């Protein structure tokens, strides 16, 4: 009798452990699949960024060759279009990935604030900048080295340099709701509105070339058989998830809510915003938030409308803690709507809202801050620890 009971208990335990083992295996398989989804999204988002940058490069070359208002407008639209996929790649930062590891090109791509008068004339310094210093040769090698004078970045290339060269300084009052008003004649060789139009055109082209080159590197890193992708896919599952969630958490709470939004609101300084020349900061914010949601839900819609999707962190969480998964999904969706509710242009919105209230910017900030904390909870539920603080 006793033996039978013991046997029964034994086999129950055996069955139980079998079931547990099977569950663990399923979870591990899901984690492995999450890595592939993440890498696929990274590749496609960088590929879109690259493709749109190439389109912008083509437009810039055409404009510099034939500087007309129409060609100038095409360049500006191409810049705005190029920002759409790039904004969604920023969730791949802060995770020791190829974008911003020790040798990462982030500082060459999207660094901010731009040292405007290091590049070109500004209001109050009509002869400043590399463009107006004819002793400096403007080519890729020179600009790359000048971007890091003295071993630290002196930001003079990347998206925001191109933005500055297309729009110019935004010197109008926020209430005018106008971006920078640079004239296309700044590039006209026969009747230039400012000196050195040839050097300005050259600078613009070199910036576009460098951007395309750096985005190509990132696209290649994440491509099938790409060097970082191979490394990432072979990473220990939890370590890979830690990287994914760190990027999400840090972007949400520290970089986006903190550095990019709260700092701007707190300063109420008109141009303390990332896309200050084009007044496109509201899109930067929405796209950064979207990138976080993309990674959690394991889905990215390419510029051409194809949906890239696969097993997601959300699927994994549904298995581990369904309630937390639902909360996370609704938090991400709230953040998305709150970011979209911020009035444009952002420079006017920050002047119209006070710190700590319940205005649209503060509402989005608090949600993104909460999301960062919630992402840390998700990590905890998966059995890993992340920090959502901005790496110094």
């Amino acid at each position, binding site marked *: 009798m006793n033996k039978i009971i013991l046997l029964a208990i034994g086999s129950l335990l055996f069955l139980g452990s079998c079931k547990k083992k099977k569950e663990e295996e399923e979870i591990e398989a899901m984690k492995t699949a999450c890595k592939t989804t993440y890498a696929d999204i990274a590749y496609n988002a960088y590929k879109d960024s690259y493709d749109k940058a190439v389109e912008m490069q083509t437009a810039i070359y055409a404009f510099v060759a034939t500087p007309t208002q129409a060609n100038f407008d095409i360049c500006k639209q191409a810049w705005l279009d190029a920002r759409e996929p790039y904004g969604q790649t920023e969730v791949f930062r802060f995770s020791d990935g190829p974008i911003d590891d020790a040798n990462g090109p982030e500082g060459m791509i999207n660094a901010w604030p731009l040292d*405007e008068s290091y590049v070109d004339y500004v209001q109050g310094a009509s002869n400043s900048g590399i463009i107006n210093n004819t002793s400096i040769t403007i080519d890729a090698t020179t600009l790359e080295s000048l971007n890091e004078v003295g071993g630290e970045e002196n930001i003079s290339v990347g998206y925001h340099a191109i933005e500055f060269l297309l729009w110019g300084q935004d010197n109008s009052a926020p209430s005018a709701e106008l971006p920078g008003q640079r004239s296309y004649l700044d590039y006209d060789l026969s009747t230039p509105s400012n000196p050195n139009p040839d050097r300005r055109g050259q600078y613009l082209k070199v910036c576009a070339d460098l951007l395309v080159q750096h985005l190509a590197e990132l696209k290649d890193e994440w491509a099938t058989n790409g060097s970082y992708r191979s490394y990432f896919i072979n990473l220990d599952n939890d370590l890979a998830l830690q990287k994914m969630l760190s990027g999400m958490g840090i972007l949400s709470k520290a970089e986006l809510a903190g550095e990019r939004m709260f700092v701007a609101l707190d300063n109420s300084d008109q141009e303390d915003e990332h896309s200050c020349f084009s007044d496109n900061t509201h899109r930067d914010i929405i796209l950064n938030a979207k990138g976080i949601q993309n990674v959690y839900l394991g889905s990215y819609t390419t510029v051409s409308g194809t949906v890239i999707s696969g097993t997601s962190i959300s699927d994994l969480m549904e298995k581990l803690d369904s309630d937390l998964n639902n909360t996370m999904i609704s938090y991400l969706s709230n953040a998305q709507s709150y970011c979209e509710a911020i009035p444009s242009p952002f420079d006017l919105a920050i002047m119209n809202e006070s710190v700590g209230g319940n205005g649209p910017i503060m509402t989005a900030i608090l949600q993104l801050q909460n999301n960062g904390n919630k992402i840390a909870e998700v990590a905890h539920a998966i059995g890993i620890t992340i920090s959502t*603080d901005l790496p110094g």
Partner: protein
Amino acid sequence: MKKTVLFLTTGIILFSGSGLNSCKKDSISEPQEDERLGGDLTVYDFSTNAFSLPAPALGGLDELHFFVGNSFFNQNWVTAPSSTTARDGLGPLFNARNCSGCHFKDGRGTPILPGMSGTEGFLMRLSIGGTDVHGGPNPDPNYGGQLNDKSIQGVLPEAEINVSFNLISGNYPDGSAYELREPIYTISNLNYGSLDPGILFSPRVGNQMIGLGLLEAISEADIIAHADEWDLNGDEISGKPNYVWDYIENNQKIGRFGWKANQPSLKQQVAGAFLGDIGITTSLFSTENCTSPQQDCLNAANGGTPELEDEDLDKVVLYASSLAVPARRNIDNPNVIRGKELFFKVGCQSCHTYTFTTGIHPNFSHLSNQKIFPFTDLLLHDMGSGLTDHRPDYLANGNEWRTPPLWGIGLFETVNGHTYYLHDGRARNLEEAILWHGGESITVIDRFKNLPKSDRSSLIEFLKTL
């Protein structure tokens, strides 16, 4: 959960090692409590970001203000005039474009090395004979109080700094050899005339930013309790407070920060660095540091008056006050336990004070009443002629340096990718840093040198857990 586990493992180690340790146990109170070096400001991240984390207690609006401080600490300052008016006014003369240029990842600056073009976290203080009106260093008439080796376009930098090293060989009593590097600095390409014939130099690297608010929260009485300026207790160790000018309260205050304890408060330290290192004015130091021969510097556009507004300065101070201290690692390793005993036995703690309990911090409650383990007394000590800079700084003479806190020293390699120590980074590792100690620490260092080799390395293993 974490605490329970630690307690258990601690218990096991103590039990199993009791034969070894019992006779020396009384030298260390509550052996492993010091894992939490920063009290409630202790964090458990040992990655490259180990020095960049806020006090865990910061949340909500305080945390967002911390990010504002972080932003002004990390982001580049740009040339004025610029659209980003909150962030323009760089230079005209400067050493770095942002605070993190010298405190990369909130850690230790890189010393200047032979063949390096430019500096990254290294600077040279200057002064001439006599003092300023407040008893501080007297600046050079042409170059001011600090050599700025960088500048904005249209303004010439002050000079270039280069270094070479003299190698000094020595032996431990047991015969094993060591080698120290003595730096020799050369200043070249002086763009604004000659330096004063009696010029005095003091080379410095940027310090790690962790736990600074806690050091500020130690009460003055507790610091003075460790002072023994005339060595009345006859232990050869003096300990002298530096009294320096407080530009906020306009009186003399005890100095706490900087390699010579020449800054009385974090706010003044931060504002001083903004002006001296980046060329950013604040309400505290509102005049650009251009000397009279530096006309281009004087004529350059500024980024507002002041360039860093008070509200933002206060947030950088909040940031600098709230960076947490990484916990000790590897504390149960028998070598580490042995090394810690030796640290006390040799006498290192006579200056590197083991523990303080902070008082009430006037501005930030999360810094108050914390039992901390900073391994500093914040006092000046004579380090001998080997380390002298021959340059007085308020009450500190050339030989005297403030005991630096030791928390974080085991993580420089992870955070900053190097193991250079001491005020100018001349020591290539912790062993060399110990061996450079002279002056009043000579007896302590002799005790260290006389230890068996395995004990010397145990002591260093202990230091690496900080």
